[in-house]
């Protein structure tokens, strides 16, 4: 498909600017053509009318003269200087020229006295307006006048019109195409921004040029709308965070009171057991509150990034050293091939948190005897951390949701945890503009953390979904 200024031809033809351009060209061309036709018709009518009247007048004039004077009058007209423009001829009833400068009766001339267009008998390229009539004595009188000049004027008119109208139509078409391209480009820019907004980048704004055309005004309105959306979205998220924040103090004091009661009744009694259970419940609520606030904290950290270069390989080694005993104690094999050095730029503390979360999760949900693996793959510039386990895996339908707040699959209802672990990981990944994908190990699952900025684009979660549609697997954990 041919492309013009980055647009496909079909897009161009569909564009509003192009359609406006062609419509305008059609209207302009049509009205110019109508004007020309009127002018052409009117001017040729007037020119021919004047000429025809002079021919008619001559015929009437000469026919009214005494018949014996005619020959003299015609021959004296011929010698008249300056020469008169009408040509006159007198012929015998059988068409032989008696006198005059009309050499022969023009072919097809009806001798009824009316003016007709005929071919000049002497020169085939010349056109005459001629009239003829049979006189009372039987002789034939022909009056003619050359029409070549009028015909030439008419031809000039047509040529002039062609030279004017065709370029005007072409120019308006070209104008339409140019306007179409310009409009289409702006619209593309706008739809690219809109796509990013849909992908969750609520801070994006439509481009407004300095002009004040309809599109600019529309963009300004949409931008105001987006601002409002962003405020509402922020407020909504804030509500959750505020609730979490406000719950902390009362929960803490409830817990303290329960602890005191437990001490009073003694842990051995039935009441004591029930209080101990309540404390466990409050602890779980507190851990959810803490995790929620941690997610909010990381989201807000976007504003004050403290990114430094550090070795990802070293982070993995430390994590492996810490978690290998935990896996082995549980009866799992822990695989960790010594990694190479891989310098990346980021917030080391919270990236450790993300990786530890994935490993901790994998060990937690893999039943023995199983395998948990931590690998550093990819090239120097583009390191990929893989956390692989042989656990129950994650159902494709649930793979997108595992990165959302509070999602816990059926398989994990009985396991402890706030259900916020992977949403925390997703926030950390988004903060760094890295990407995380979730694949299938049949059985088990494989998290891949791509550690370079822009690895996932703005729509990290969509990529997760796209990938997770590729494969099937047993239900999931988080």
């Amino acid at each position: 498909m041919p492309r013009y200024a980055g647009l496909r031809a079909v897009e161009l033809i569909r564009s509003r600017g192009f359609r406006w351009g062609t419509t305008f060209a059609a209207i302009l061309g049509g009205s110019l053509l109508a004007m020309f036709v009127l002018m052409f018709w009117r001017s040729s009518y007037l020119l021919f009318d004047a000429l025809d009247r002079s021919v008619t007048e001559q015929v009437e004039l000469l026919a009214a003269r005494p018949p014996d004077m005619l020959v003299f009058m015609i021959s004296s007209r011929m010698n008249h200087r300056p020469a008169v423009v009408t040509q006159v001829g007198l012929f015998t009833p059988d068409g032989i020229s008696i006198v005059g400068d009309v050499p022969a009766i023009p072919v097809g001339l009806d001798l009824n006295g009316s003016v007709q267009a005929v071919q000049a008998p002497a020169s085939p390229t010349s056109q005459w307006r001629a009239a003829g009539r049979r006189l009372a004595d039987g002789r034939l009188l022909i009056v003619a006048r050359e029409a070549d000049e009028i015909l030439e004027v008419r031809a000039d008119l047509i040529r002039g019109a062609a030279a004017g109208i065709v370029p005007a139509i072409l120019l308006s078409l070209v104008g339409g195409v140019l306007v179409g391209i310009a409009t289409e480009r702006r619209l593309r820019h706008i739809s690219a921004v809109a796509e990013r907004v849909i992908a969750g980048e609520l801070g994006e704004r439509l481009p407004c040029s300095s002009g004040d055309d309809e599109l600019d005004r529309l963009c300004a309105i949409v931008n105001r709308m987006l601002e409002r959306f962003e405020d509402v979205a922020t407020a909504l998220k804030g509500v959750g965070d505020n609730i979490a924040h406000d719950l902390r103090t009362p929960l803490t004091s409830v817990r303290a009171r329960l602890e005191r009661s437990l001490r009073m009744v003694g842990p051995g009694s039935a009441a004591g057991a029930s209080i101990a259970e309540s404390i466990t419940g409050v602890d779980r609520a507190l851990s959810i509150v803490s995790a929620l606030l941690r997610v909010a904290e990381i989201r807000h950290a976007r504003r004050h990034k403290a990114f430094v270069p550090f070795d990802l390989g070293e982070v993995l080694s430390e994590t492996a050293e810490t978690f290998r005993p935990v896996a082995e104690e549980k009866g799992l094999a822990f695989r960790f091939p010594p990694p190479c050095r891989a310098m990346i730029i980021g917030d080391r503390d919270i990236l450790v948190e993300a990786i530890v979360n994935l490993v901790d999760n994998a060990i937690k949900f893999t039943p023995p005897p199983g395998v948990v693996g931590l690998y550093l793959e990819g090239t120097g510039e583009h390191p990929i951390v893989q956390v692989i386990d042989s656990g129950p895996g994650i159902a494709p339908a649930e793979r997108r949701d595992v990165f959302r707040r509070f999602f816990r699959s059926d398989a994990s209802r009985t396991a402890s945890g706030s259900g916020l672990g992977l949403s925390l990981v997703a926030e950390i990944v988004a903060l760094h503009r890295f990407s995380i994908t979730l694949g299938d190990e049949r059985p088990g699952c494989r998290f891949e953390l791509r550690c370079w900025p822009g690895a996932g684009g703005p729509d990290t979660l969509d990529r997760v979904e796209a990938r997770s549609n590729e494969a099937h697997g047993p239900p999931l954990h988080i």
Partner: protein
Amino acid sequence: MATILVIEDDPETASEIRAELVRCGFTVGCAADGPGGLSQAVDGRWDAIVLDRMLPGLDGLELVRQLRTRNVTVPTLLLSALGQVSDRITGLRAGADDYLVKPFALGELMARLEVLLRRPSGGTQTRLHVGPLELDLIARRASRGGRTLDLLAREFQLLEYLMRRDGMPVTRKMLLEDVFGYKFEIRTNLVDVHIGRLRRKLDAPGEPPLLLTLRGEGFILSAPQ
């Protein structure tokens, strides 16, 4: 018994802390705002101060800073609803000795307070002793009664941390944060696994146990009586 000043503006939290401290035998003073807290804090009769980060009148951080500029060296424990690592660091930089993020268990607060009250006798020591245990920080060698202990790096760190706080309860959270550097929740029994491994190396069959588990609280390392 030690005297503790609690500066906390939330009456409920203040009364919980106070009740727990009294139960543990401390003498407790209370203040509900920054300026009141500061005027009590400077009078030199406190063994430790527990204060909230956000206080009306005078911010907790600023209060600690002012104490330090007046050469009041009483140990302070900041309580805060802000949990970010950077907040913890600013808290400690301002001169606070420990930092506890709300919500916390009262046991956690007591454990940390006890550590503060018996501040480890200086990080400058190169050899630590607890009963038959000896830790050489320079040679990175650990031994129990002459028997060399073959410890991994992480186990060595754990043991050093516990030996510096011998006889004091140490919570899982303290170990997670200070030894492993994880200031977030872990769902596996990470701390218990490492403590278990360390314990198996410390206590040979037949030897009296040095590293005990305190049910629901954490661990304690102490010399056998």
